[in-house]
């Protein structure tokens, strides 16, 4: 059982940072909406506020790590140009997808959308975290602000979902692989 370095980074980017972010989104939206239902004297309101701040901070870190590793780590491997005369395109995912009409759409729609829409995620969630850090429990007094923040988080969820879906499908049709191989375990051959 082995994996290439590029494959490992792709997995960390998608199944690590991206998938964890997606999992965290619903919790963030629920907690943000709960600010509107809290009373000033509610027992544990401050503890919950601290929890939400930490939760959103982790989401901010995940979002930035996902887009930065994607844009500056994996995307260059994806769009690498093969030297003239190259026959096998396995190490050049973008060119491999574009080489067939049946797979070209995964690049022209999937990657073209994913590479841009994903950047809405860190902007939106950083704003949401900034607002929660600034206002905390005082958000219960500002319904329009609270609702708008929930909308931004919902859009970030959608954008992360688009990026995640197309990331998975792109990697299924033209995997990003190459570089040194890491041996994870030795299996028994039959």
């Amino acid at each position, binding site marked *: 059982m082995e994996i290439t370095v590029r494959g490992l980074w792709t997995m960390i980017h998608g199944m690590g940072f991206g998938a964890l972010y997606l999992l965290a989104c619903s919790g963030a939206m629920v907690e943000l909406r709960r600010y*509107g*239902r809290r*009373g*000033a004297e509610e027992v544990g309101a401050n503890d919950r506020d601290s929890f939400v701040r930490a939760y959103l901070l982790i989401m901010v870190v995940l979002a930035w790590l996902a*887009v930065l590793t994607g*844009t*500056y780590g994996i*995307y*260059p491997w994806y*769009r690498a140009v093969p030297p003239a005369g190259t026959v096998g395109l396995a190490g050049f995912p973008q060119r491999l997808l574009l080489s067939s009409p049946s797979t070209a759409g995964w690049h*022209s*729609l999937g990657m*073209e*959308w994913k*590479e*841009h*829409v994903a*950047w*809405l995620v860190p*902007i*939106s969630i*950083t*704003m949401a975290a*900034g*607002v929660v850090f*600034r*206002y905390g429990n*005082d958000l*219960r*007094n*500002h*319904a*329009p*602000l*609270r*609702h*708008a*923040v929930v*909308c*931004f988080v919902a*859009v970030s969820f*959608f*954008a992360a979902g688009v990026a995640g879906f197309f990331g998975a499908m792109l990697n299924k049709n033209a995997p990003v692989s190459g570089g040194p191989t890491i041996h994870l375990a030795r299996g028994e051959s039959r």
Partner: protein
Amino acid sequence: MSEENPGAKAALPLGPGAAAMLAAGVGCCALGVLAVATDHVPWLRGKMIFYRPTGPLSGVTTCAVLVWLLVWIFLEWRWGRRDVGLRPIATLALVLLGIGLLLTFPPVSDLF
């Protein structure tokens, strides 16, 4: 709003929240506009290559993030200590976010 707590008094001014929200909307819209412009203007495409292995995407995203942060700093400076009307600003921020989202969608960006 039905969720408001009657009698609760706002302790913090609304300006910083409005600034954060509107700046995020502007940043998201800037991302969409820059993505479309870079796709359609060859001269700009060349200028947006900040990091060659990533290509124009590096410039588009860096510029959008810079726009977002600069607008946030500017609005925080202007509104940081005062109240502003949240509802129209929230609406504008969400419209800008929606425009940004639409412009990143290739079938829409190809219309220009």
